[in-house]
């Protein structure tokens, strides 16, 4: 069994190192990273996933991410602030 989180963290490092370069031609597209390299660009996450599944299978460990500047991720303001179900 591979450590998916560790693989994804490594692919994210490679993604971040190549981001500026990728933004020039692939901004807004979804990229598949495998082995520290971008192996394909796609219009949406579903298409990228289809490619990665066909090529590597579900357990190989790969990154699929939109080619975009990182931004603050907030799942839900209410959820994170703990007020969804406060009593």
């Amino acid at each position, binding site marked *: 069994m591979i450590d998916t989180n560790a693989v994804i963290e490594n692919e994210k490092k490679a993604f971040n190192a190549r981001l500026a370069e990728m933004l020039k031609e692939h901004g807004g597209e979804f990229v598949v990273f495998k082995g520290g390299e971008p192996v394909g660009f796609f219009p949406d996450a579903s298409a990228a996933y289809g490619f990665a599944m066909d090529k590597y299978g579900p357990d190989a460990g790969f990154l699929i991410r939109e080619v975009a500047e990182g931004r603050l991720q907030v799942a*839900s303001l209410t959820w994170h602030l703990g007020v969804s179900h406060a009593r």
Partner: protein
Amino acid sequence: MPGSKRDADKRQAAHREKQRLKRKEATKKSGAAPTNGAAASSWVKFEYQYDPAVLQGFGPHVVAEWAVPDHFAAFLAANNSPVPQAIVGHMLVDTGASSTSIAEEVAKELGLTQIDTVTTYGAHGGQTSRVYLAKFRLSVRDEHGQIHTVEQELATMAIHDMQGLYDAMGVRQSDGSPVRPVGLLGRDFLRHTRLTYHGTEGRFQIAVSKVLVRQP
């Protein structure tokens, strides 16, 4: 003055009724089929009725389901492995959520492929959340009995221990039955909708743009 306000309300109600009858008459004359407001526009409306106290206590939930993406299902089938059944449950309609999220336990049960991680921030600091590719489906029956379905494959962030929180808080449906939370319906989906929250009557209406709706 209260008397004046009552008179104004009566006048407004009479005016609205007059307008409604006018529209009805015009529809009759034109021979057009009566509409629910959705068929004539680009919206499909769904209405949910709750006990008002339940709506206030737990927020609007819609029944939806998560399933494995088509490519994953095909992979499993090709390898003679069983394809997990879609998991049906309740999604909290959350205008405070930037994106639609899946409950982590649902993602695990479906055996979804993790495709990314994100760091989320909140009152309790940062934490890492897994991102999965999953198929989301919302099927609802409109007032004419027709089923409409919204279906999307999307990269969705996982929410930790949603079931645990719901259990701890005793979240219940209007009939008292337990709720199985499967995620949050966030603004990436809600940007295609119009929402009406009628707190006093316990009604919640969601009108979905036909852009998203698969034709029955």
